[in-house]
């Protein structure tokens, strides 16, 4: 089953006593009030747990020698529904293709994760990071160096043990 569902039993419409029901309700609220377990996460002090499939700021994978893994095939700017990736490809002496310009506008991005899904060499990834506030709008256009320098974990777009999300 994809999502676990809980079927609630509805009580029959019978005669109820307002007084008893009210006192019962007050008992329940008092119990909740005195219960020290709360759901609030004290965010800046206590780190929130991100789920493995949470999609956030991008990151570019790099080879051991520091080159980006990207081969400038142009699939990600083609598939991108928000049209936020700018890619200018180039070729070196050995005929290896590499990105000359690779920019992602994180403001336009809708974090759908399709760039990661479509990438043949697993170079571009969406990451598990959301703390990316900046003082200017220009700073939200991430260039290649910045994407390569991101060090947060990348997103697991699907569970390898359960690729169809069943």
């Amino acid at each position, binding site marked *: 089953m994809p999502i676990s569902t809980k079927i609630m039993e509805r*009580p*029959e*419409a*019978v*005669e*109820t*006593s*307002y*007084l*008893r*029901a*009210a006192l019962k*309700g*007050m008992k*329940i*609220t*008092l119990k*909740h*009030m005195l*219960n020290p*377990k*709360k*759901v*609030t996460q*004290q965010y800046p002090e206590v780190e929130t747990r991100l789920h493995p499939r949470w999609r956030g700021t991008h990151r570019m994978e790099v080879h051991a020698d520091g080159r980006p893994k990207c081969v400038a095939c142009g699939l990600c700017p083609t598939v991108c529904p928000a049209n936020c990736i700018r890619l200018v490809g180039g070729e070196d002496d050995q005929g290896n293709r590499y990105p000359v310009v690779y920019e992602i506008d994180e403001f336009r991005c809708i974090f759908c994760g399709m760039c990661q899904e479509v990438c043949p060499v697993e170079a571009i990834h969406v990451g598990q990071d959301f703390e990316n506030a900046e003082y200017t709008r220009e700073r939200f256009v991430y260039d290649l160096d910045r994407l390569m320098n991101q060090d947060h974990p990348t997103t697991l777009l699907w569970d390898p043990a359960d690729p169809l999300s069943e």
Partner: protein
Amino acid sequence: MGSSHIIGIEDGTAYFLVTSAKIAVMFGVVMITVAYTTLAERRVSAFIQDRLGPNRVGPMGLLQPIADGLKNLLKEETLPASASRLYFLLGPMLAMIPALVTFAVIPFAAPLPTPWGVVPMVIADVPIGVLYILALSSLGVYGVVIAGWASNNKYAFLGGLRASAQMISYEVGLGLSLIAVLMLAGNVTLTEIVSRQQQLGIWFALPLSLGFILFLICAFAETNRLPFDMPEAESELITGFHTEYSAMKFSMFFIAEYAHMLTASALMATLFFGGWDLPGTWDDMYMFQGQLISGFGANGAPIAATLTVWKSLATFLGFALKTGFFLFLYIWIRWTLPRFRYDQVMELGWKVIIPISLGYTMVLAATMLTLYEAGVEYGFTFGLVLSVVSGLCTLGFVFLLDKGGTIGGAASGKKVTFEQEIL
């Protein structure tokens, strides 16, 4: 001027100074309590809903009311173009002033001895105490009605209309449930009511248990708190009468609501839980033939009361605790019970509260008359008999409510199918 002299109006300047000081202190205390009640409301509601609530401003969020106040002071005031300007401005004032003024007659501690004389711990010990409170607390509704009408907004108007209807319905029940207290105390002065509770040996909540329950219900309705918040009713009327208000004018309605709550809580503590009286007789002191006494000796001679500063402090703390408990009860009930339907509110007011409080008044009057005729003196036995009678009345009342039919909820009553309904 001896130190056992009670400072009264005939003392002129001293009385003026003492009263001014009391007004200043009590105004400050009331405003601070109101501010912190708003914080308590938010924190308690959060805890009831398994959240934490505002805890960022200051230690444990204790500076939150100051931040809220500053925000409301600095916000832009809006004035709807089609609103009636004069009444729109008058509304918040009329709502706030009666709520604060009512606190003047409530005694909050045992008389305080000072080197210049004894200071009674009540701002104005007027001989018409309870009547003064009833008169002024019902004035508060004018602010709501005027605000609702002046806004020229249909939701605000409906809120104001509901407020007036509700106030009229429950004012009667409130007055009738108070008659029990006035009969037993034989006086309408609040200080006298406190001293009569000391003389009885039992707080009035027990000899007048049904009266207390009825008063509690009516006080909730009078202060427009859930489950009786018809005039505001966020889900139906946006926020009812104060829909069009912003910034400090909105804040004034807010302060008025909480000040009303505070006054009603203090009143419940005073009328039914002995006011500043603490359990035991060590702190008892009341007026007898112009003297403060703590009771009567074995030979019937009055014993002069010994006044100390710490007695005043302890009794003030007791009064604060009692009031605080009722404030908590207000908040607790607000976050437990859903709002009544409008017709349910009217039904409860006219068909349940008023007849029952009338009947209860009759039963109590008959009991008291019988006791006096039988020669039972006002004292512990007297209270005990009344407690039994009231307890039986309360049981009957609870039984009546429990049988259902008085407040029909969606799930109560017989299940009526569509076929049955059209036949």
